[in-house]
């Protein structure tokens, strides 16, 4: 059964349409790229899936359920900006995640942090931007969720940090869970993706397997994307 389903999902802000009749189905074990230019509706879609926004029309189902407390327990979300209290130490954040999420594996998080040489007693605000991104990803990936929603996890970090982040996503691959990664940095992620979704002006333009795109178009997803979204 699909872990995530969107049926005729639409979102309007006043007169402006952010998403228009989106139909999607994502199976467990898939790593899916949500790809589109700025303003195409990526973040709106992610926020509808995790229940931070409510649809104007249509519905979202996670494991057959509408977003609510039950689905929040099954969805691990990495927002596109810093979301942790910056006065807390890394250790305190771990405890917070432990309190909030029964599926959080503190030992796993600790092990990943130590491998990164992050001092758990350091305050979040004392960390570099790259390290903050890594710590936030580690916390999210240390949950045993059914659906991981990663909003721009590799935006604005250096190439080595990017590699670390993609490596962490592969390392934590779980055939029973799906991972959705939103980004416009396609060349960097396409090797770790099973499927690509192109969003354009709030509509799904394409939803195909990455290797099918390469096979039928004879070019990388990145190049194909540039062709489709040529300004």
């Amino acid at each position: 059964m699909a872990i995530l389903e969107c049926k005729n999902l639409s979102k309007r802000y006043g007169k402006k349409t952010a998403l228009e009749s989106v139909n999607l189905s994502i199976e467990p074990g898939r790593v899916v790229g949500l790809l589109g230019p700025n303003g195409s509706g990526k973040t709106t879609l992610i926020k509808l899936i995790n229940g931070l926004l409510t649809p104007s029309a249509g519905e979202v189902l996670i494991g057959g359920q509408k977003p609510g407390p039950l689905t929040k327990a099954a969805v691990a979300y990495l927002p596109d900006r810093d979301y942790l209290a910056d006065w807390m130490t890394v250790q305190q954040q771990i405890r917070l995640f432990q309190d909030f999420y029964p599926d959080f594996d503190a030992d796993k998080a600790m092990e990943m942090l130590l491998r990164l040489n992050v001092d758990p007693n350091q305050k979040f605000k004392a960390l570099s931007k790259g390290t903050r991104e890594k710590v936030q990803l580690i916390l999210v990936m240390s949950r045993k969720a059914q659906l991981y929603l990663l909003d721009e996890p590799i935006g604005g970090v250096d190439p080595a940090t990017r590699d670390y982040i993609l490596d962490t996503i592969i390392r934590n691959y779980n055939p029973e869970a799906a991972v959705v990664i939103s980004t416009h940095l396609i060349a960097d992620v396409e090797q770790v993706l099973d499927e690509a979704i192109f969003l354009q002006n709030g509509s799904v333009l394409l939803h195909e397997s990455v290797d099918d795109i390469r096979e039928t178009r004879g070019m990388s997803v990145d190049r194909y994307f540039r062709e489709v979204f040529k300004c």
Partner: protein
Amino acid sequence: MEWNFRGDQPIYSQLIQRIKQGIVSGELPPGGRLPSVRDLAMEAGVNPNTMQRALQELEREGMVFSQRTAGRFVTEDVRLIEGAKRAFAQEHIRAFLEGMHKLGYGREEILSLLQEEKEEEHGNSGM
């Protein structure tokens, strides 16, 4: 192993070629045990499902085989490996000939150039 991918081909078919190259070059010796799908995927920086698909295809071709509990191994069939090596060689030769034809060289000229190259190599190694 070094992993580099071209944009104009599916990733799984490039994984198949890369692992085969490893086998024919002896980097992955006959009968040797392969790392797990996840470890190979991490090493190559690719999606584990894509790596799995490549390994299944290699299994169908007989280049690798699974033992239910022990994992995956490189074939011990030396003739099969030799055949794959020959196929790679033919591919190189075809690409080489195509390049030479584009430069305007004919068959005889190519052969004499190769002969010259061989003599030069001999000369150098004799010094």
